């Protein structure tokens, strides 16, 4: 398939240049924000910064990391991500194990499948859900963030397809012969074999929990409990300081362009950290989850 014709060479060259530019376009905004965050205030305010910091200083990062409300929300975000991922993964792995059985092996499976398909298709909507969370007394607690988001049917489907394609049936049968029950098989056969798959879904869940901001905005009334995403939404996007108990000096600090950029970039850091692992697996996961033979 090697072509040396002139038109094809021209096309290839243009193609490489075009794709290269496209790739740069996709990360340029993040690089720009990083550059602004490390630039001097004067340079940032005079709009001189492109993709490289000007008058390099870590001043903005110092101010950001020295700010109590920022640190508190960072901690809240981490806590929410860990707790949410653990709860969600526990529920999904257990359910996916059962649902990975065939209809004839597991009577009642059809009912359970219908139960979960329904919640994928239809939901009560914003206001009935809000009133329910309120009636349960969860407003202003971390549980309002981690419990309603725990059951993600899409992840459930991915997991159960991993279980179906990744674990040889014969292993399971052998374990049964040796007297293991379903709990034991899940723990000693399924989990070790599906570790990479579970890591993938776990990372997806973590990203979802970390990025989630709207639930914090509506279910939390005390801004001290905001996770970082909600904090950033309020401070940077809405520029609403009324909820925050910060003094005027802090407001001035937090709304400087360089400090804002540092806050945004810190919000993206956890994603950047898990991204290499994510990328390794999600292509496989997407294809496996969407194409069923």
């Amino acid at each position, binding site marked *: *398939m090697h072509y040396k014709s002139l038109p*094809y060479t021209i096309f*290839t060259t243009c*193609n490489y240049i*075009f*794709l*290269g530019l*496209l*790739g740069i376009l996709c*990360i340029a*905004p*993040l690089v*720009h924000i990083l550059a602004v965050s490390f630039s001097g205030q004067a340079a940032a*305010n005079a*709009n001189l910064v*492109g993709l490289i910091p000007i008058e390099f200083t870590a001043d903005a990062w110092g101010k950001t990391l020295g700010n109590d409300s920022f640190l508190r929300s960072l901690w809240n975000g981490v806590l929410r991500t860990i707790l949410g991922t653990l709860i969600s993964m*526990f*529920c999904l792995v*257990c*359910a996916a*194990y*059962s649902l990975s059985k065939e209809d004839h*092996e597991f*009577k*009642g499976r059809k009912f359970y499948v219908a*139960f979960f*398909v329904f*919640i994928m*298709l239809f*939901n*009560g*909507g914003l*206001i*009935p*859900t809000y*009133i*329910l*969370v309120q009636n349960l007394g969860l407003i202003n607690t971390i549980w309002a963030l981690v*419990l309603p988001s*725990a*059951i993600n049917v899409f992840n*459930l489907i991915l997991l159960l397809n991993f279980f179906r394609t990744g674990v040889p049936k014969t292993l399971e049968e052998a374990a049964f012969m040796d007297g293991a*029950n379903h709990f034991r098989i899940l723990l000693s056969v399924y989990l070790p074999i599906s570790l990479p798959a579970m890591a993938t879904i776990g990372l997806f869940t973590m*990203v979802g929990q970390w*990025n*989630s*901001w*709207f639930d914090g905005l509506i279910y939390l009334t005390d801004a001290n409990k905001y996770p970082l*995403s909600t904090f*950033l*939404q309020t401070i*940077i*996007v809405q520029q609403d300081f009324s909820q925050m108990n910060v003094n005027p000096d802090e407001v001035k600090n937090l709304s400087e362009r360089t400090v*804002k950029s540092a806050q*945004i970039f810190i*919000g993206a850091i956890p*994603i950047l950290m898990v991204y290499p692992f994510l990328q390794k697996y999600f*292509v496989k996961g*997407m*294809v496996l989850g969407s194409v069923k033979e």
Partner: protein
Amino acid sequence: MASNVSIKTDSTVAKKLPTEPIVVKQKWNLKRNWPLHVLMLPAIILALIFNYAPLPGITMAFMDFKPYLGFAESEWAGLDQFRRMIQFEDSRQVIWNTLIIASLKILFHIIIPIVFALLLNEVRKMAFKRTIQTFVYLPHFLSWVILGGIMLDMLSVDGGIVNIMLGKLFGTEPIFFLGDGDWFRFTVIASDVWKDFGFGAVIFLAALSGINPDLYEAATIDGANRWHQVLFITLPSLLPITVVVATLALGNILNAGFDQIFNLYNPLVYEKGDIIDTYVYRMGLLGGEFSFATAVGLFKSIVGMILIVTSYRLAYKFAGYRIF
């Protein structure tokens, strides 16, 4: 001779087999299977509480719900809320905005990833290919809060880097990307495509790598050049997966992207940028119009559900696609 014999044995075996498929009678078999039901419990309980328990609350849409009266005391209003929704200038505009923004997003989310996948497929240097992929998948995983914060800074009229660059390159006046209705729609669609085209291309790249290389070889022998091969082999091979993606996307025709719009819009662009989800939030949780907002939300849920069921049926019919 040998083959004749084997055919004979096969047919005799076939005769002995029962003609009807063996039906395994389903049994609860609780002695062995009770753990399976126990394992379902955590997920079932959470779903019952947070996904099923809110459903009765939908009756609010047929009431004139007052929080201080509660469900028992609030008056029934029949279909009044839905009538208001259809008569209100605002809500009609909002439904229209949602349809326009969502359908343009769907269209470009199919075209751009296909073109990108085709171009990337022509790249022979694996290191280059992998680097580009790493870059273009990244924005998909960043939240609209982060991206919204970045865009507010970069697209700002005074001092946003985009307007400065446009001014230097083309000498244009600063553009109100997020303050003018039409530009807002453009910005929303363009940035959404920017965020997700790479991720959307994954499925097409997988389909491209599944094409049998023999086809290209045969075409080369028949004198087809690269362009002919794309036109007569690659594109037709992508058709089935394109049909699936397009049909499934239909279910999203009322999802114009709450996260994105909420983080980018402002009162200046409500007229052209407000969508059903943001409207429900403002009317309901901020404005206290619980019943009206629930009715609008219910309208969206029902239309959405009908579309999803229909599109999955169609995808199954056309391409044999199913998920569970």
